[in-house]
């Protein structure tokens, strides 16, 4: 890269189980207004402010096709560029990064929002499956995640206790995050005795229903330095898709995440992520995923994700803290999930983590979309 691209400011709503007080535009403006106030930027057409917006939301979740129209006004989309991605917010950040790299824009706003409370997660997920095959079997992501969890446990001897440790760790970290929805001090036994959803996944192994929004501003180096004294540079990005048919995939390993991470590491010049990256904010919609994803990211060997969490390395005070924010298990909406991982990575690198602050000069954010992490994206950030 000839010129670096930086994230200059991030904002998140407090994540909540339900936000019946606001519609999408009002929810998103909560975070956009924070960014405008913090940076002093305005939406302008003369190159002095925000040049364009990339948003992430989902037609099915919002119940309208072209789900970005309700937020066009609040993201500066009136007679101006606004483009939407529908997979996960981290891809919106990726898209904005590429827009700036292309030379077309200097400063781009990125947003993501979802109000999970307004519909049924199971039914929305069901509609993502092949209508002439799996949809009629009533599949949703939790059932698929259960198949992946079982495969992972069977293949490597990962235990339910090791998975439960992820819930205990992340909800405890969430107690130090003022934006977190469901912080809690739990014991492993609390997780193991929560009601079963789809064996081996229990209620507390799954991310709760959540409403919220996240936004950030990306800028070309020269402008980023003027907008903040603490820009966070996007040093590497990689993504990788996986086949649709669950049966075609080896669920016990995450080859697509391994490839996405390799691609991001190559771009960022990372050879040993465990030594070179100080903090990881990753997308664990289900507890087992944090263990499996840490393997995919190269933080331990295949099948050693359970041992890694037992060692304490991924705890808030460990060598490689994973999800100091409390992760998705503490409550972050789908679509917002990956972008909030990037936001939390930026918060850490800017030293704004408050009680959840860890020491790091490089951070990693991971987002995903689809059943069992079908589409993966990894972003390496640095100061």
């Amino acid at each position: 890269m000839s010129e670096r691209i930086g994230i200059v400011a991030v904002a998140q709503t407090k994540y909540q189980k339900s936000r019946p007080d606001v519609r999408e535009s009002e929810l998103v403006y909560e975070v956009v207004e924070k960014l405008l106030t913090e940076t002093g930027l305005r939406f302008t057409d003369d190159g002095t402010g925000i040049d364009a917006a990339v948003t992430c939301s989902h037609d099915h979740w919002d119940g309208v096709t072209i789900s970005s129209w309700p937020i066009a006004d609040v993201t500066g989309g009136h007679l101006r560029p606004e483009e939407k991605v529908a997979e996960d917010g981290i891809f919106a950040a990726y898209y904005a990064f590429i827009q700036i790299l292309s030379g077309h824009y200097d400063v781009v706003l990125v947003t993501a929002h979802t109000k999970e409370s307004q519909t049924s997660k199971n039914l929305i997920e069901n509609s993502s499956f092949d209508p002439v095959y799996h949809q009629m079997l009533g599949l949703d992501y939790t059932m698929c995640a259960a198949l992946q969890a079982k495969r992972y446990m069977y293949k490597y001897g990962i235990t339910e206790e090791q998975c439960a440790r992820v819930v205990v760790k992340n909800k405890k970290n969430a107690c130090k995050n003022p934006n977190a929805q469901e912080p809690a001090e739990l014991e492993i036994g609390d997780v193991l005795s929560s009601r079963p959803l789809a064996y081996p996944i229990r209620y507390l192994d799954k991310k709760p229903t959540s409403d919220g929004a996240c936004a950030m501003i990306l800028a070309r180096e020269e402008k980023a330095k003027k907008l903040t004294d603490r820009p966070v540079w996007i040093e590497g990005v990689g993504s990788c898709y996986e086949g649709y048919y669950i049966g075609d995939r080896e669920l016990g390993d995450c080859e697509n995440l391994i490839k996405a991470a390799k691609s991001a590491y190559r771009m960022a010049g990372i050879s040993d992520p465990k030594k070179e990256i100080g903090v990881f904010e990753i997308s664990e919609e289900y507890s087992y995923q944090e263990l499996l994803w840490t393997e995919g990211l190269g933080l331990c060997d295949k099948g050693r994700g359970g041992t890694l969490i037992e060692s304490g390395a991924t705890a808030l005070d460990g060598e490689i803290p994973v999800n100091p924010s409390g992760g998705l298990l503490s409550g972050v909406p789908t679509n917002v999930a990956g972008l909030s991982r990037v936001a939390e990575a930026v918060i850490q690198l800017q030293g704004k983590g408050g009680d959840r602050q860890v020491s790091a000069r490089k951070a990693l954010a991971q987002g995903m979309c689809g059943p069992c992490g079908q589409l993966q994206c990894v972003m390496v950030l640095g100061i």
Partner: protein
Amino acid sequence: MAEKSLEQVKISIRVEIPYLWTAGKYLARLYNEIKENERFVANKCPKCGRILFPPRIVCGRCHVRASDEWIELGPRGTVKDYTIVYYSMKDPSTGKPRPEPYPHAVIVLDGGGLIQHYLEETDPEKLRVGMRVEPVFKPKSERVGHPTDIRYFRTVEE
């Protein structure tokens, strides 16, 4: 050897996904006024002064938060654009097909602000741009706080 052609397989699914949308605080104010008082209200852009109807949080042209100043519009208005629909379309509020043909119009409310709604008049010969209309509300007991609380706009002679 001629291959026997395969029979086509078609799958029919009815997808029903429930939603419970929230109107947010700006639309809620309009909807409550419709329900309780048969009135239309709007907010304004503090920068360009334009009327925001339906009311909303931000003026998309000026990128500024709407002012807290609320104004009343209509209830009478003038037809700006119209079409006559000759096919049956589901009425989402009842789930039943709407009898056709029916006019769908854009109406400029007195005082400003545009509302899209039906017209009572279905005779194409009697429809014209610039015609004066007024809303016909459902009885209060049937109103739920929504634009469908208005049955249609009827022609008025002034």
